[in-house]
């Protein structure tokens, strides 16, 4: 389909030093590629290191071993080609919605007079045109996510990294946000790396679904292509036969990992 690789993790290993001499290996030898214009979702049980992997691709974390290549260039420092949508609230609370979106342009030297109208346009395209002067605390969780999406997209990054961006939202809002994301993505098809623990969300959104095993030392244990036709509607696609078949197939693998993770966490609690 595509020849250029937007993100390539090669044998990436991520380890953290704990308080004492022990070292905690979060991710072991991960190999993952995201092609240009490809939407890849990473799914795994809680605590499997999916977000860690995303932070490595963003340059926020340095892998202990292995390499990260962005458009075939080794990544040094922060990934300047990427926009990052965080799970937690990451908007600047002291700026209005409009300023929060405009700041993405202003830091790279766009004059304010030019940045503001463009920010207003982006707010309108995420459906918040009338909320420009609200501060983040005056917006609902879903509205804050929309602002965050506009904040990232206004910079037109070549790669989108998303860390369970819709995780804190309620089920209906998640689906609406998913459709909004697909609409915006359809316009210029950036490379997307989307982390989630929700398998349905992953299949509905992505071109490829990657499954990770339970941590510590988690690995990538599966990679499925989703060939559902685009453009998709998240509400509709869930009724598709192919969707169900794929869901059953992936879930049979994921289920074991989820149970393993669950067993581990309960044992750990008993040990304490």
């Amino acid at each position: 389909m595509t020849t250029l690789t937007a993100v390539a993790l090669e044998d990436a290993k991520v380890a953290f030093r704990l308080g004492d001499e022990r070292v905690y290996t979060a991710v072991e030898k991960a190999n993952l590629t995201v092609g240009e214009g490809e939407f890849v979702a990473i799914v795994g049980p809680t605590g499997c290191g999916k977000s860690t992997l995303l932070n490595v691709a963003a340059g926020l974390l340095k892998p202990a071993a292995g390499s990260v290549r962005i458009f075939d260039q080794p990544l040094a420092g922060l990934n300047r080609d990427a926009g990052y949508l965080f799970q937690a609230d990451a908007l600047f609370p002291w700026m209005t919605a409009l300023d929060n979106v405009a700041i993405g342009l202003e830091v790279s030297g766009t004059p304010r007079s030019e940045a503001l109208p463009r920010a207003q346009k982006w707010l309108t395209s995420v459906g918040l045109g009338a909320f420009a002067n609200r501060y983040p605390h005056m917006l609902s969780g879903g509205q804050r996510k929309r602002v965050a999406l506009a904040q990232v997209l206004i910079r037109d990054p070549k790669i989108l990294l998303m860390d369970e961006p819709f995780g804190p939202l309620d089920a209906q809002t998640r689906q609406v946000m998913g459709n909004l994301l697909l609409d915006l993505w359809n316009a210029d098809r950036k490379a997307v790396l989307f982390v989630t623990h929700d398998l349905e969300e992953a299949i509905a959104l992505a071109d490829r679904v990657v499954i990770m095993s339970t941590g510590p030392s988690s690995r990538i244990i599966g990679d499925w292509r989703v060939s559902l036709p685009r453009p998709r509607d998240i509400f509709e696609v869930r009724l598709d036969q192919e969707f169900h078949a794929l869901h059953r197939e992936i879930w049979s693998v994921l289920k074991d990992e989820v149970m393993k993770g669950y067993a581990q966490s309960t044992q750990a609690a008993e040990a304490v």
Partner: protein
Amino acid sequence: MSRLTLLSLQVLVAVVCLALWQLLSTVPVFGKILLPPFFFSNPVDVFAQIVKWFSSGVIWKHLGITLTESILAFVIGSAGGVLIGFWFARQPLVAAVFDPYVKMVNALPRVVLAPIFALWLGLGIWSKVALGVTLVFFIVFFNVYQGVKEVSRTVLDNGRMLGMSERQLMQHVYWPSALSWMFSSLHTSVGFAVVGAVVGEYLGSAAGLGYLIQQAEGIFDVAGVFAGMFVLSAFVILIDFGVTLVERRLLVWRPTVDGRG
């Protein structure tokens, strides 16, 4: 409760207190005056004293001096607190080295510094400003230090991913965060600036509200002492009101306590 009811109840408290005071200091109960005028004066005399100060215009000079001292103490103390707080928060080594000394100086009751400041800086306004600065500085310092250290990790990462340089992070993330913490302690620090000024005046000066109270006390003019106290309270309430206005303007982005805008 409606605004009017609340206000009338508030006024009622004052009226009852003043009436009791007036009554007990002038009318004997069982042949004895419970509040001897020599020690307690009475509201009428106190009010007469206040009117005299304002009608003769003496009070303006003293108010002006105290206000000047408070403002200077607040500005210098805040500036110092913001700068040092920022510096310490960004340089953990410096903070660690100075930590015991900061705690030591902060533990010291500031009143004992007043004589030193009077010796060093004379009996003019600067010894009072210095006393106020030692009070304001630490409040602002601790708040800014905390504010910079507790910037949300996610917000910082977001700034970085949006392409902010260290300087831009300073300007758009650390600085607003530190300022918001400073403003949240605005009432306390402004209050302490006034305390520093008045205590300094009380301990040795030639003008100001503290001086006025101390003079009245020196000649056992209890009405004068109470009059000074009332003027001082009114003065502090006015300043506090001003601070509230400033705060509302500057912290619009902050959620209020009940979580509503």
